[in-house]
């Protein structure tokens, strides 16, 4: 342990205090441990009082913090004995304090290595380290030591020795005059300030950082004549192998296909839902159409009821029926009779003038005239005209239809 000038030690102590300050939560905890003594206020007071005041502060604080050690500290505030005492207890504390002795050695070694004028400075710095840790240790003892029953502080020892870190950084720092092409370091002028658990925004912030870096790097590279963009015909080994990239591509394709598939399915499902409605609508429409047709035919029958007996007028009846049926929906499913067969049936041009005339056979034939489709002479009797309709299509409607018509 190097012997320390009191003044330098005090200065170091003051520095270590200011070092600790940035961490607000820590200092608050510390305050609560000390029984509500406002550390900042105290410090301000001390700085106002100067060196002597600091001494008092030191004593007061040590008296507060360490019961047994305070005697040592009291009789000779900066005596060598006190220092030794502190060191003894340090060894018990463990890990981080164990390294402290090493710090002294290495500090001095470094100081010497740096040589000359900076050596003194380095020494002082290392003292600063010591002192900061002395205080920390006091706190630490308080944590694990005798006063455990009274106070249960959950606080960890925090070390943030900016002076030492700055010195270390300066020793390892690359030459600042080094051109940018040597390091390719870029600084993003913004801090990442997003919610940590918000994955999307967080990644977006990183992406923005990288994008900013890429763009600035391109202009910098242009300035430094550094080749940046890879030409499309420059082939070399890549970080990820071709087979791996193939797997990635396959996965992307699969993903795309999966999305497409699910979308298709969804649309189909929706279509089905809608299609059902369409089907119902269609059925209703059909039903309505049939009813209407029946109504019309019934009305026709009622109107022409007397005519049915008169065979002479069946042509006009046919026309009436045709008229009634004309606006019937074509979805009946009844195949249309082709032109040819119609021609065959009804005649076209002057095929045979007398072919539709009654002959003797047809006159004699009472039975088959109505049954034989289209062959027998028409209007051969009262039966013939009534059977005209039935001969055209189905002979007997289905059961459900019959039941329906009966119920009307």
């Amino acid at each position, binding site marked *: 342990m190097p012997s320390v000038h009191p003044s330098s030690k005090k200065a170091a102590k003051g520095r270590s205090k200011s070092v600790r300050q940035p961490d607000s939560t820590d200092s608050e905890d510390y305050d609560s441990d000390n029984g509500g003594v406002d550390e900042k206020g105290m410090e301000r007071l001390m700085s106002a009082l100067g060196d002597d005041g600091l001494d008092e502060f030191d004593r007061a604080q040590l008296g507060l913090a360490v019961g047994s050690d305070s005697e040592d500290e009291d009789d000779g505030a900066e005596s060598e004995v006190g220092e030794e005492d502190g060191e003894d207890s340090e060894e018990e504390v463990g890990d*981080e304090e164990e390294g402290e002795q090493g710090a002294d050695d290495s500090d001095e070694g470094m100081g010497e290595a740096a040589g000359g004028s900076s050596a003194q400075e380095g020494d002082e710095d290392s003292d600063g380290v010591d002192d900061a840790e002395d205080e920390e240790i006091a706190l630490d003892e308080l944590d694990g030591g005798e006063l455990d029953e009274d106070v249960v502080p959950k606080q960890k020892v925090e070390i943030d020795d900016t002076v030492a870190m700055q010195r270390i950084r300066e020793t390892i720092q690359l030459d600042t005059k080094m051109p940018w092409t040597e390091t390719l370091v870029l600084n993003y002028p913004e801090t990442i300030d997003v919610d940590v658990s918000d994955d999307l925004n967080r990644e977006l912030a990183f992406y923005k950082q990288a994008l900013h870096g890429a763009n600035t790097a391109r202009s910098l590279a242009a300035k430094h004549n550094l080749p940046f963009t890879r030409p499309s015909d420059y082939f070399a080994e*890549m970080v990820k192998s071709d087979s791996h990239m193939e797997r990635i591509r396959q996965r992307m394709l699969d993903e795309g296909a999966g999305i497409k598939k699910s979308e298709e399915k969804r649309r189909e499902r929706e279509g089905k839902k809608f299609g059902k409605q369409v089907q119902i609508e269609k059925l209703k429409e059909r039903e309505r159409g049939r009813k209407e047709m029946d109504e019309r035919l019934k009305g026709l029958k009622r109107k022409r009821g007397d005519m049915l007996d008169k065979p002479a007028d069946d042509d006009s009846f046919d026309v009436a029926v045709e008229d009634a049926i004309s606006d019937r929906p074509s979805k009946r499913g009844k195949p249309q009779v082709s032109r040819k067969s119609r021609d065959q049936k009804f005649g076209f041009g002057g095929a045979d003038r007398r072919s539709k005339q009654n002959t003797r056979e047809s006159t004699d034939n009472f039975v088959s005239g109505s049954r034989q489709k289209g062959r027998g002479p028409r209007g051969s009797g009262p039966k013939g005209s009534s059977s005209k309709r039935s001969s055209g299509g189905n002979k007997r409607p289905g059961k459900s239809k019959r039941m329906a018509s009966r119920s009307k």
Partner: protein
Amino acid sequence: MASILKAQKSNAAKHDSKKRKIADTDVVDDPTPAPKKRNKQRVLLLSSRGVTHRMRHLMNDIEALLPHVKKDSKLDSKSQLHLLPELADLNNCNNTLYFEARRHEDLYLWAAKTPNGPSIKMHVQNVHTMDELKMTGNCLKGSRGLLSFDKGFEDSEWGRLTKEVFTHIFGVPPTARKSKPFIDHILTFSLLDSKIWFRNFQIIEKDPLQPNGPPQTTLVEIGPRFVLTPIRIFEGAFGGATVYSNPEFISPAAVRSMIRRQQGGKYNQRKDAEEETMRRKERRQREEDQLAVSKVFA
């Protein structure tokens, strides 16, 4: 295209040769007053025993990305870290990345400057390796990546120190033997939630969706990604005084034990409550009445 490359190369070579002439004369050993110093870094990469496959893959990724890395075999003992500076010296490395696996689940990363320090100990979490099929980017093996640090690193001294060390370790020096001439990826370090988030993006100059459109930079993540929580910074290499310790860091073992204790606490609470209920029930039971049915109609 080839002509462009040639032109670019010749340009770079001209530039380089000028530099090298100066560099060759000056850079011999440790020229402090040298006007143009080369960035010479070599990194020893190794792990402790007991790394899992994921950690091993992460190491492989880092090795693939950084051509100036020398990978060494696993270190047998976890207690003798002082061997590492020697090992680095044997491999002509002035940096070391040491992955320390504990309990086969916790991964710690030591980033150290050897032989004189400092060294940073960090806890590695949320590791995603390059093998994952979600990261679709790709880059040249050995191309020098850009390093991007956000402003948070400048706000604290430990941040500045960490940035400096990372610049040495993750920045590929131009003299690296296996390095390739073009820049096609960027490593980003972002300080968020007092943790360091690492990402690696491929830089694409042209939008693949409209190849004839104006050149527009887009990025695709290559991987790996991980999050580092700084624990301590030591003055020496793998030892020495602590110059920074993170008060917010809670060791993963402590976290796990806390969870377990909470679960155990739940059980204990339930049992206590059950007992208490029983006790109360018994206490509330009435004494047998003199005129109870069973007594009257005995």
